[in-house]
């Protein structure tokens, strides 16, 4: 019979693994798996950190470039100490008053007729610890340049990353309108 044939074949295999062999093999296997999973976990962790930092970097670059572009195309600049700047900017068919100010660990934006209040510009995960809009040049005897400097902190997995950013923007309009 077919089943007897198989039974006989199984009986012929006398040797299997001993208990010790099995334990050693399992032990090695477990050790390797644990090591590999540690590596895998740390890869995933650092990937998350890298990705979060990349997102933060994207947001900073995007928003700072937005501020820079509007200053570049603006006119009639008005500074309030070092933390607020207002100017005219052509948007949606007319010159509108646009303001940027440092408040509540963020840079807030105001656009006349489009946003009634100051609205935070940067990602709330970013904490802007210091911000300045410095005026260089007086628009009468010399050209104006706005120096924007930001100190931004972001906390990723209990680690704080700090950005020290500074850029200058010279408006494209040369003469102040009277």
């Amino acid at each position: 019979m077919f089943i007897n044939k198989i039974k006989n074949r199984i009986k012929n295999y006398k040797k299997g693994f001993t208990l010790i062999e099995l334990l050693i093999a399992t032990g090695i296997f477990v050790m390797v798996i644990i090591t590999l999973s540690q590596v895998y976990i740390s890869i995933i962790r650092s990937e998350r950190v890298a990705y979060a930092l990349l997102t933060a970097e994207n947001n900073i670059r995007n928003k700072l470039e937005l501020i820079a572009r509007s200053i570049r195309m603006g006119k009639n600049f008005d500074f309030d100490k070092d933390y607020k700047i207002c100017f005219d900017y052509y948007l949606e068919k007319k010159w509108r008053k646009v303001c940027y100010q440092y408040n509540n660990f963020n840079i807030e934006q105001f656009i006349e007729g489009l946003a009634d209040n100051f609205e935070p510009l940067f990602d709330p995960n970013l904490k802007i610890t210091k911000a300045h809009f410095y005026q260089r040049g007086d628009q009468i005897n010399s050209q104006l340049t706005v120096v924007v400097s930001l100190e931004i902190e972001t906390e990723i997995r209990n680690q704080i990353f700090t950005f020290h950013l500074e850029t200058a923007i010279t408006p494209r309009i040369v003469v102040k309108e009277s």
Partner: protein
Amino acid sequence: MKKGFTLVEALIAISILIIGILSGFILVTRALYNVSVIQDRLSAVFLAQEGIELVRNIRDTNFIKILNNKGTISWREGLSDGCYLIDTSMPLTLKPIACNNENDYLTYNQDLNLYLYNNGSNTSFYRQIKIETISDDEIRVISFIKWKTRNMIFDLTVEDHLYNWFKV
């Protein structure tokens, strides 16, 4: 069961295992390394841009002076060919240096939050502005920035052209 593994088989098996684990570790260290590079690169990009904008301010100031008739000055006053350093302190002027001089690093002033020269803590950022004549009414401005992150040197070059469009 007389036969075990041969030495070659064992070596191959172990080396495959090591390559697998090692590449994982390398990946981790590379990822963490690049994370720190990102931060400095972002600062560098904006600092390079700043260099160009400050030079533009000097040219525009010349235009304003020409318009206000304060003496007869050239649109390229203070913008002759050469290598320079510039920071945001007033008055905005280019300080000539030798083109191969790469020792004047920017410092960071914690109170003002500004990158200046000889004012604040040391940074690894070095910025050089280079001006070249293209024609009577056009100059090329090159903002070169070099910095060090974890003992690796990176650099970045931004180029802009300024014109005498205000010609009067």
